[in-house]
């Protein structure tokens, strides 16, 4: 290459726990044992929620549901770094983040039962509605970050999306805008390596997703997304940077979608059992258990206890969800506009 070099770039990768659960102490985030235990509980809760949701769907008690199995570390680790004042923009596969932030379990289930009333986020949380149009929530997050900065608020913004979303125009336009205005935002990409049947290689020729941030003039970091401590560490750093005026960060949490895309999908049609088995062995909950066990902080019995507690919470959530009366037809018009148009008002009367 006789031509001159214009610039060189580096993209880094963060992991704290290796696959056996032993930690790189230099990189351990500042977390108390209680905090780590709480993360563990939330990961188990997320797993229980997910398993229950899948079986409720099978019984016809929920609609189509997108499992999060395998992504618990990415979701719980990142959401644990958020504060209540922060604004969060989910896609549709972040139930672990919702649970971590305290979104009511019955309400979460109610959404997947096909009831939009469940999207009325409780007032103490700033979580946007689930967003099904892939990637289209990312510009909203940028707008919220602009507004937060305009208001001189200390809130930061986190937006969640998948590897598939990085192919969408909205991802690009939003990332670019965040770079131009140096906004207080963290882009959290859960690279679960599949977008329905399309593997990462079919999604982009980029060797990592993290390096995509180079196109926007800010930092992109690849994080071991099955390592809850690494995810927490990276998110926390990025949020601190955001709050202190350091601008946006892109986090690629490399993880794996252990289940089907949704309950309507059959992943066996397009990926190998070997691949799935490999990643089953990298289960993020297992890894954290190994870490905790090494210091005597976890025993199988304690593990069962945590699971039982989680199951009880989910049981109650299901009961409460199913006790909610179905919406009346007139509720079609709820929130259509602050004041209905004359035509809408007429249509409402007819119901």
């Amino acid at each position, binding site marked *: 290459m006789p031509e001159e070099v214009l610039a060189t770039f580096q993209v880094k990768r963060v992991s704290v726990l290796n696959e056996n659960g032993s930690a790189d102490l230099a990189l351990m985030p500042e977390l108390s044992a209680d905090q780590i235990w709480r993360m563990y509980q939330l990961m188990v809760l997320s797993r229980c929620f997910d398993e229950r949701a899948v079986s409720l769907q099978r019984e016809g008690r929920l*609609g*189509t549901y997108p499992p999060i199995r395998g992504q618990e570390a990415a979701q719980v680790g990142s959401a644990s770094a958020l504060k209540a004042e922060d604004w969060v923009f989910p896609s*549709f596969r972040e139930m672990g983040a919702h649970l971590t932030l305290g979104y009511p379990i019955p309400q979460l289930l109610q959404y997947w*039962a*096909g*009831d*939009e009333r469940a999207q009325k986020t409780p007032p103490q949380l700033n979580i946007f509605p*689930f967003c*099904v*149009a*892939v*990637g*289209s929530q990312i510009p909203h997050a940028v707008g919220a970050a602009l507004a937060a900065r305009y208001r001189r608020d200390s809130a930061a913004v986190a937006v969640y999306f998948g590897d*598939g*979303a990085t*192919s*969408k*125009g*909205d991802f690009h336009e939003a990332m670019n805008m965040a770079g131009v205005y140096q906004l207080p935002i963290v882009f959290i990409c859960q690279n679960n390596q599949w*977008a*329905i*049947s*399309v593997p990462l290689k*079919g*999604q*982009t020729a980029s060797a990592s997703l993290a390096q995509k941030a180079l196109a926007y003039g800010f930092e992109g970091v690849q994080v071991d997304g099955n390592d809850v401590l690494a995810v927490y560490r990276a998110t926390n750093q990025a949020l601190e940077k955001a709050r202190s005026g350091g601008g946006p960060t892109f986090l690629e949490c490399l993880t794996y979608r252990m289940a089907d895309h949704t309950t*309507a*999908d059959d992943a066996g*049609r*397009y990926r190998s059992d070997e691949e799935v088995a490999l990643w089953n062995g990298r289960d993020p909950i297992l890894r954290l258990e190994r870490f905790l066990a090494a210091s005597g902080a976890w025993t199988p019995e304690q593990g069962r206890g945590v699971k039982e507690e989680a199951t009880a919470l989910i049981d109650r959530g299901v009961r409460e969800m199913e006790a909610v009366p*179905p*919406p009346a*037809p007139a*509720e*079609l*018009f709820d929130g*259509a506009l602050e004041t209905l*148009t004359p*035509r*809408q008002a007429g*249509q*409402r009367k007819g*119901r």
Partner: protein
Amino acid sequence: MAQLNMVQAINQALADEMARDDRVVLLGEDVGRDGGVFRVTEGLQDRFGAERVLDTPLCESAIMGAAIGMAAYGLRPVPEIQFMGFTYSAFEQLFAHAARLRSRSRGRYSCPLVVRTPYGGGIKAPELHEESTEAIFCHIPGLKVVVPSGPYSAKGLLLAALRDPDPVLFLEPTRLYRMLKEEVPEVDYQLELGKARVARKGSAVTVVAWGSMLERVLKSVDGYDAEVIDLLTLNPLDLETLLSSVRKTGRAVIVHEAIKTCGLGAEIAATLAEEAMLHLRAPILRVTAPDVPVPLAKLIDQYLPGPDRIRAALDEVLKY
């Protein structure tokens, strides 16, 4: 003749045309290996290879845009948009390019592509999976809009669309995909674009419907002397069939699952009010969804026009 459902009929039309014409190339999210989320393209990648059935990245605008370039180059691409609700991000490509390429280049380039997309409500799916915004696309000059109402019309219309020299939006009523089976000839046949079908003869009132509403209308008109028109092509409208029916019956009811305001029912009613006014004995009624976003599963049945509302409209116009 085989009894096929709509998924099978569409699959057969695609396969036959791909075998006949190597310019036909499918592209879209999950259309290849997975055979499409509704299995409409099942087996086609195995049969025709990955170059003819392209799994794309997740990018509707570029799927549409690339199809335009392919069409201009001389192929006959068939982009699939996974659900109609995701055509919105490809809207500029469809509107400003696919539909205008022939006109912008004064015929130097043309854009023979068929955009396939599942359409309409009633499947209890997540948000944006049950859209029926066909009227928006009928406001795009240069684009044809087609909606089959069953397996037979699906195959015949799709074959015609695939051979049309201009872009066609082919809307597949998701609710019907596996609901009904019909005799579908294995041979090649086309249903001419721009022609409606009289699905039921009658003389007291004309009911116009398309897609999955047709089935509902046919079920609802029992006991009425109603003529039912199955539009099949939404743009261009078959004015002849519409007008001659309404001139005979003097009454018109239009049923669609889209919201009322600026729905395609408006165009049909306006055309009747322009060209058949003196034959009309009663107000032209539209039975539609209310002017609100498509709801999730719990309210979808209250949203879509049901038999009660259809019959109430019939009773109303028959008072005149």
